[in-house]
């Protein structure tokens, strides 16, 4: 219903500029670059004993119409990066371009960017309507236009009935919608979202995930979304950038990030992963034999350049491992189950093999659900040859 309202209103085309941009975007298939950060360094308190480098050598290109997520644990620099894009924080080194324009030295009010703040930062002394109108008023838009855009935004986020309330009288979810409407009203080229869902409860969070994603598709505005919640990142994004310790670890689609992690950090941070120490035993063209401590040997197809004797990490997702009571064709093991956790739709087993511990998640139901094990059982592990990812870093 939310989407229908927006479609109807954009069809009316009350904002000429947006209509032109959208139609030209349809005729020119070339990918436009929404934001580009090059050679970015951010050091807090430089040349003092408290000097702290928050961001290191960041080079990042965000495409137009993209739902782009900056993902990382707290303190990784993702919010700093967002604040730099918004103009709230100055760069120590580097340049920042938004739709081709160098904005490195521009203050926030001169950037075609709007932000949804983590705690929403709604103006407490203004009604919902006045909050949403604020950006348009500051841009000096005529009163009639402001009124019509605000009405459209209120409908877009289903807040029309609450237009004359003040933020204190709204629930967390409603405030979130107002913050979103306020940031979207001036039709920014880039919308920055700083963990906007973190203050909501789980049910509402999941609902808002879908709405945000739909909103992004409908408005065609580039969203840059900051979160520490990898599930959120995977569910919503077109592309994800994983940050850790102020460095970009990997940039890619959710599938690439999840299926093809390029480092131990990404494999471990995104979802759950078993990180197994392995040694390269034999190389036969693309087929490589790895020896896993305590589990035996396994042959895998491998595109990485490796040397015999090299120590690597094999990353494998808990749901990609199958357990059986007998050693299969390429079975590894045996390993001993020391814990079994019932998760409803799956059962999680924790296994020990020599020094290593592993997590295996077996879905319930269907044929595989028939197999069940108890703590103390000795089991063998099997997986498809492309399931583990070989990590050298």
């Amino acid at each position, binding site marked *: 219903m939310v989407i229908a309202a927006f479609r109807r209103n954009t069809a009316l085309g009350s904002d000429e500029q947006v209509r032109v941009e959208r139609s030209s975007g349809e005729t020119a298939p070339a990918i436009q670059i929404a934001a580009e950060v090059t050679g970015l360094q951010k050091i807090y308190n430089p040349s003092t004993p408290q000097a702290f480098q928050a961001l290191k050598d960041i080079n990042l290109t965000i495409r137009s119409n993209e739902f782009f997520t900056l993902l990382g644990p707290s303190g990784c620099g993702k919010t700093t990066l967002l604040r730099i894009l918004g103009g709230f924080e100055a760069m120590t080194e580097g340049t920042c371009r938004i739709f081709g324009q160098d904005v490195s030295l521009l203050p926030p*009010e001169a950037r075609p*960017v709007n*932000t949804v703040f983590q705690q929403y930062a709604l103006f*407490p002394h203004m009604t919902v309507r006045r909050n949403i109108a604020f*950006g348009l008023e500051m841009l000096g838009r005529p009163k009639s236009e402001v009124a019509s855009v605000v009405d459209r935004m209120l409908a877009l986020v289903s807040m029309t009935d609450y237009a004359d309330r003040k933020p204190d009288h709204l629930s967390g979810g409603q405030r979130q919608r107002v913050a979103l409407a306020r940031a979207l009203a001036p039709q920014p080229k880039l919308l920055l979202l700083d963990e906007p869902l973190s203050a909501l409860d789980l049910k509402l969070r999941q609902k808002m995930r879908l709405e945000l994603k739909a909103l992004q598709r409908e408005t065609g505005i580039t969203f840059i979304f900051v979160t520490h919640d990898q599930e959120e990142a995977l569910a919503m994004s077109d592309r994800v950038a994983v940050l850790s310790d102020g460095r970009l670890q990997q940039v890619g689609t959710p599938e690439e990030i999840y299926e093809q992690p390029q480092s131990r950090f990404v494999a471990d941070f995104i979802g759950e992963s078993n990180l197994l120490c392995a040694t390269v035993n034999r190389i036969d063209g693309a087929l490589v034999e790895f020896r896993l401590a305590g589990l035996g040997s396994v042959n895998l197809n491998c595109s990485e350049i490796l040397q015999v004797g090299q120590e690597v990490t094999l990353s494998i997702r808990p749901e990609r491992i199958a357990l059986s009571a007998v050693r299969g064709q390429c079975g590894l093991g045996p390993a001993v189950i020391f814990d079994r956790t019932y998760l409803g739709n799956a059962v999680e087993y924790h296994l020990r093999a020599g020094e290593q511990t592993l997590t295996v998640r077996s879905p319930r139901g269907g044929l595989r659900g028939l197999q069940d094990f108890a703590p103390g059982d000795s089991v063998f592990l099997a997986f498809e040859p492309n399931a583990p990812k070989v990590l050298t870093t």
Partner: protein
Amino acid sequence: MANARMKDIRAFSGFGSIAVAGVLFLYLPILFLCVYSFNDGRSVSQWSGFSFRWYITVFGNSGIKAAAMNSLTIATIAASVSTVLALGAAMATVNRRFKGETLAYATLTFPLMVPEIVTAVASLVFFVSLGVRLGFSTILIAHIVFCIPFAYLPIRARLEGMDATLNAAAADLYASPIRAFWRITLPLLAPGLMSGWLLAFIISLDDFIITALVAGPGSTTLPLHIYGMLRLGITPEVNAISTMMLVGSIVLLAIAGVLGRSSKNS
């Protein structure tokens, strides 16, 4: 230590009577003052019937009226100017780190701790050494100066409680720093400005020591005038003036309370 259980101090016997005695000690003299302002006779200790005659006398006394007018004018101007200066000081010192931050705060609030007679003598010596003629203007300048810390504290408290991201949000929505100040900061600071102004107003209206020293011949304020009247003997006329000042401050407090509540509720 033998009896480790703490007993609430309010549970001790005699606590209630001490509290009542304290309240009586505070308010009984004021109550007496108010009651005797309606006394028909000349005495301030012997009741001889109810009348408004002393209030009528007050309104007929041109000296009192001039002094009251002076006091209100000085208090209004001093409160307004010092509130603006205190707002500037608060904006400059709150929510930002800079060298000498503690020193700035100490300098701004130190006058509250200085004995008033010291400030009074210092002000007098300052004016005299500059060769300024004592009078209305010297009272006004001195009042503006000593009102600043009183206005500063409530404004500072309000500013400290303000969400700093609101300014970021305003800038994000294309407001220049000046427009963000007018549209966001100032309206949100209003209750703090209001209490700062009222506090400064009351303090200025009430001041005696500094005013007595820097007031020249011919210029007087209400407290100075009342003191002068007392030296000629106490009459219920003084009670009547004091009662009116009391009612005035209660009204001001009530206005401040109502304003504060409505800004919180809305």
